[in-house]
């Protein structure tokens, strides 16, 4: 995983609520056995016309949003399936930062495993950010994870909360499994106790 560094990028707006993972990456693209190459399929059914050309009415196809790394989206983003293909597609497309009022829990977890910072803001602030982008498409926001701050040209900047463990992993790009395996002796000890308490979970 790439460490997350401070950046200034175009912020794209997707003012829809309950965007589900079936829209983020439709199931016909879940059949790959690799982790890469999902970006071209991101939002496939909304993004492309039936003949495969770009749908000009789809938000992210606006020229001003080209190269955006920040996506500002409506409530309950990422609801539905647990497919990690959704954050894989989002990251592969080029986004590394999401801003919304809320995310589905599994999707939210998956984002942080893939170097995506998912920021939660309240509804009033989200509306302001949407309005700022609407009034000035192509506007660039800067994101500073270390100091947990976002700045915008119109002065809608804010400080955000983030779990320290997730923040640390994003900043370092560290491998979760390696970290857990440092606790292997604790897991062994737990298993011994667990086996005594619930022996039927260890059939021979």
């Amino acid at each position, binding site marked *: 995983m790439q460490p997350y560094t401070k950046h200034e990028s175009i912020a794209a707006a997707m*003012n*829809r*609520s*309950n965007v*589900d993972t*079936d*829209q983020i990456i*439709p*199931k*016909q693209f*879940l*059949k*790959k*056995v*690799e*982790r890469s190459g999902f970006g071209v399929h991101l939002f496939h*059914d909304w993004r492309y016309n039936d003949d495969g050309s770009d749908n000009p009415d789809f938000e992210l196809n606006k020229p001003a949003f080209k190269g955006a790394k920040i996506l500002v989206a*409506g*409530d*309950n983003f990422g*609801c*539905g*399936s*647990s*497919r*990690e293909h959704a*954050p894989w597609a989002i990251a592969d497309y080029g986004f590394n930062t999401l801003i919304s009022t*809320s995310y*589905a*829990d*599994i999707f939210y*977890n*998956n984002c942080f*495993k*893939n170097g995506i910072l998912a920021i939660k803001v309240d509804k009033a602030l989200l509306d302001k950010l949407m309005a700022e982008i609407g009034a000035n498409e192509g506007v660039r926001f800067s994101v500073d994870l270390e100091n947990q701050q976002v700045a915008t040209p119109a002065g809608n900047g804010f400080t955000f909360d983030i*779990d*320290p*463990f997730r923040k640390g992993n994003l900043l370092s790009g560290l*491998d*979760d*499994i390696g*970290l*857990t*395996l440092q*606790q*292997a002796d*604790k*897991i062994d*000890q*737990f*298993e011994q*106790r*667990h086996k005594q*308490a*619930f*022996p*039927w*979970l260890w*059939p021979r």
Partner: protein
Amino acid sequence: MEPPEAGCSLSLIACSCMSGKTLYDKLWDAHVVRCEPDGSTLLYIDRQLLHEVTSPQAFEGLRLSHRPLWRVKACLAVADHNVPTADLEHGISDPVSRLQVETLDGNCAEFGITEFKMGDPRQGVVHVIGPEQGATLPGMTIVCGDSHTSTHGAFGALAFGIGTSEVEHVLATQCLVQKKARNMQVRIDGQPGPGVTAKDLALAVIGHIGTAGGTGHTIEFAGAAIRALSMEGRMTVCNMAIEAGARAGLIAVDQTTVDYLKGRTYAPQGEMWERAVAAWMTLRSDDDAVFDQVVTLDGAAIPPQVTWGTSPEMVVPVDGRVPDPEAQADAVKRESLWRALRYMDLKPSTPITAIAVDKVFIGSCTNARIEDLRAAAQVARGRKLAANVRQALVVPGSGLVKRQAESEGLDVIFREAGFEWREPGCSMCLAMNADRLEPGERCASTSNRNFEGRQGYGGRTHLVSPAMAAAAAVAGHFVDVRTFS
């Protein structure tokens, strides 16, 4: 059993130190390996279920980092999403689907994991076969790279869906780093009337609290209407917890749970069974447990439900009408209602019973167990598909469900009525195999998601119970199964 580290056993969110524990608190506390001061918890996982769509990249990760499995016997694998439900002797014709299933076969062989392969009678939808085999037991923590893992919470097990990185994490460490969710209780008292099923209760709950209503929470379903459900009904309810935003749904253990599990292949036997049952019977929330949120519904007031839109919360009673978006004050919500109506090709205020269907799907991890098939067959018996219904699929949840149904003659009832009797798999719930809707087709479906394109690009899904789906198949449009004769 004592929690390993002081402080970890208390919910950091609701530190009601003097009150009793919820079922979720008990399950959580029994699996804490280590807890950080900020609440990050290394949680032990007793069982991991694996399927072909969300596991290949996890096994690839293990190979690349030369990591072995922590505990092979905690794993059980099955291919379900991509498997065909017809002409099995020809194998999988789509090469990409075939590669995914073969990759699972190869990974299970390489790592020594038990897998129920295509053609094995034990093969089926992962959330059907776990309980059927007794591989799902009360008190367990259970994960799977699939959001409908919440199903297994019906057994008083803490079960939730995870992403592929987490699948790899559990394979390598048998643990997950988690933060505890909040406690929510959904209480349904009042017995539902005839023709009202677990599916209708689940849809009514989602309609009431919304698809984000349970986000950040574990939902325990309680009350007389839940207690009266069979295990299969309870699985249907917990299955849909994720559609209400909750990663995990739970139902306390009682005699119904124990009776279901007795004698199943992976369930304990003999003296170990007695010990297990004694422990399982404590898996209920204490009377003085405090929930962060409580929602109460009257089961007697819930009619059969039909979704009209593109989110499970867009649901109304069968005797209701499609809503009018103009009645919605919030502009973003109003636009999302209009968007849903356009996608569904419906006009505001249309009576639900005036909506005609092109296809019917009876199946999925929500509603493909034997009781579901019996309920649908009872409606289909002696009737024929309506002329406007092009196809009606019945897809049993597993090979064993199929065999049981055939021994009861249900396959004959369905076939005589014009339904297609298929092999087990996820099928048209998400249309990763050949079973799908064509653009514009409208389907009465017993599955769990009515998202745009879920059952096929441009397809239009209405979620209903098995009996309601069968009634729509023979009437050609939605009908109230309570008055259907």
